[in-house]
């Protein structure tokens, strides 16, 4: 599986500059700013796994938490983390399979569609929304009521990566793409993960770990 990993510094700087421009992002929203356009989906990138290379070591999980939750309760974690807090989760199956699962970047965003909270009627933005700067599905924690509909939609229709916070019910487990240089991809000791354009034709696109395990069990263990 060959993939391009060309989210270059310059492109990131470009986006940053756009943002610094203040309001420019919105103004450009329908014109040229399509890197993360959910409808056109052309530049939206996500993390995918070459399952033949993944060994289930869970370094992706610890790398994810180390980057995305670098502080906890005001203390720096210094990479001393619980892997279960990660936005990428290695699902283990018997017969032996390891299926890392993370947000598939679905162009039709069933999670957002399921969100009942309209935050801005003009733009149609909801409590769960696509952050156009980072490309990540993000939560407006102020507005989110923790109903869990997004988690349910993801679980029933796609990968099932959204978890509800045990106390607040608000969604967790959404990939942030680590500012365009995903920590899990960078740290995978087996080179199993890559950061690629969303491809809805990809064999495993949007499939749940259970579905993927079913396919791979047939392939490997029959």
């Amino acid at each position, binding site marked *: 599986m060959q993939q391009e990993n060309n989210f270059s510094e310059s492109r990131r700087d470009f986006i940053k500059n756009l943002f610094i421009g203040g309001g420019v992002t919105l103004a450009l929203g329908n014109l040229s700013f399509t890197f993360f356009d959910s409808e056109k989906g052309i530049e939206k990138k996500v993390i995918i796994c070459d399952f*033949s290379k993944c*060994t*289930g*070591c*869970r*370094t992706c999980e*610890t790398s994810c938490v*180390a980057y995305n939750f670098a502080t906890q309760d005001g203390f*720096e*974690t*210094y*990479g*001393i*983390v*619980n892997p*279960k807090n990660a936005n990428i989760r290695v*699902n*283990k199956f*018997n*017969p*032996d*399979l*390891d299926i890392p699962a993370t947000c598939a970047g679905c162009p039709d965003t069933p999670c957002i569609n399921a969100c009942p909270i309209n935050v801005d009627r003009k733009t149609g933005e909801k409590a769960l929304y696509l952050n156009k700067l980072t490309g990540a599905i993000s939560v407006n924690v102020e507005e989110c009521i923790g109903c869990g509909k997004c988690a349910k939609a993801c679980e029933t229709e796609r990968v099932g990566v959204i978890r509800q916070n045990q106390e607040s019910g608000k969604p967790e487990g959404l990939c942030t793409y680590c500012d365009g240089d995903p920590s899990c991809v960078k*740290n995978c*000791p*087996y080179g199993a993960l890559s950061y690629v354009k969303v491809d809805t034709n990809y064999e495993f696109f949007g499939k749940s770990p259970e579905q993927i395990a079913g396919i791979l069990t047939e392939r*490997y*263990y*029959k």
Partner: protein
Amino acid sequence: MEDIFGILLDINLTTRKTENIYISKRDIELFVGGRGLAMKVLYDRIKPGLDPFSEDNPLIFMSGTFSGLPIPSSSRTCVVTKSPLTSPKKSIFEKASTVSYSNIGGFFGPEIKFAGYEGIVITGKSPFPVYIKIEDNEVKIKDAGDFWGMKTDEFDNAFKKELGDNNFQTCYIGPAGEKKVAYASILHTAGRAAGRGGVGAVMGSKNLKAIAVKGTGMPNVKNPKEFNNLANKARAYFKGREATKYWREEGTAGALKSSSDKGSMAVKNYREGTFEQIENYDAKASREKIWKRDYACYQCQLSCKKSGVVVEGRFKGTIVHDSPEYETGTMVGSNLMLTEINDVMKAIYDGDDYGIDIISLGNTIGFLIEAKEKELIDINFLDGIDLKWNDIDSILSMIKKIADRDGIGDLASKGVKVLSEKIGKGSEKFAIHVKGQSLAAWNVHVNPGTGISYTTSNRGACHLNGGDVDRQNANALKDSLAICFFATGWGGFDTNQLIEFVNAITGSSWDENSFKKAGERIFNLEKMINIREGFTAEDDVLPERFYTEALSSGPKKGAILNRDEFAEKLLEYYKSRDWDISSSKPSEKKLKELSLDFLI
């Protein structure tokens, strides 16, 4: 922040009470974690001569200093108890036995840490089958009646369903453990086993089918910033190394061919050291015919484990969780003269599925085949099983007999020492054990160092013990840190790297000497528990075979262990340990030097 030196979760299955026990600063300083700390708990809790199947025998699952931290290959969990398998030649105690420790890779130890504990100590006995479910500080003892009798592979999946949450890490026994086969194993993730010394039988004696753990916490680290620097360096360390490539490509199966070539393999009940047909199921053949993927333990970059499936023949469809490893491939492969890869895969699968230590299993069956071949026993003694070399059907029948403890299987379930005592007629000469624990897959004729490892191990014959004092001490410490041997030997971390981690995590200021001393202390503590049971130097003996029957084939044809030279080597060993040469007891001076005054 307050100093916490660790908590033991104490669960009594008789009273169904659980308690958090705070570990003393001194115990952590002296015994570190993992194997060492668990041995201190064992020492504190058992009376000499305690019946290993009594309620008072603790079954301890201990994480180590590195557990739960992002240090490559720091995944090991040490299971410690008093062994139901081993015994001394003489003792005033009828139920005298050695300490038992057995390590598992995977994810269990880290999860113990995430749940907030150093380890779990289980005593008592439930009146009915149960499992234990631990979620941080919530501990539940639940009915396992529906699962009793279930084999491990099926149970692995059934238990996940029962828990309804894949985030639990689990350890469990199979039918062999339930029936207290003296060398029953404890499994984790279907393909990983704490095999040696009968830990699964002790679990079964408590009517405990399984333990599940899940935690939301993180381990404590004294100097997190320093730790982070070390961890970042360590993660880059394994990249591109020859050793890393080797483990990934071949796993321990890589040793099948090389050990056979060196004459150091267990072949035909240790009669030979080379197996001509080993190329039928060495790493190369397994990669071609069986293996579909490589997999790894927590944070490990070596992925030495290989899974696959049997794709042809009458065992087609047999899942291969992790085989052949060197040990399993040898013990039920070449040691039983099996020549076909699919037969070996099936024998390993069945052994694991019943929850039996494959090493002791292959050793015991090899002994029975030889006894029958020598006409010391007949087919009636074996309940009609026509047990033969390279005969998969009779071998599978015997595995089932042992797991069920049915007929001859009951006697065979007690291990090769008890079997040979029952059969007599000189059969003890080819009963290949030390202190009742079967030798592992390395033959001794060509390698006296392995003989030292076997004779002086505190858990009975053990290939992971180490062939000299320094290695033994270092290994005892590695088992206490929870770091895998494969990541610390050839191509792995050196001692200094481990010391740096210890210092960053615990805030101590260890140097190479403290590292050595800690391992030596742990080893001597184990020794003293065994001494208390009645073990002496008389028990540190190898089977006669290695001195009297030279290898008759292969490149090392004619190799034999020289009795005098080996005795001299052993003597040197005792001296260098400062142990008495007849009682094998450490000197008072040595115990004081190691801060083990309480053992005097």
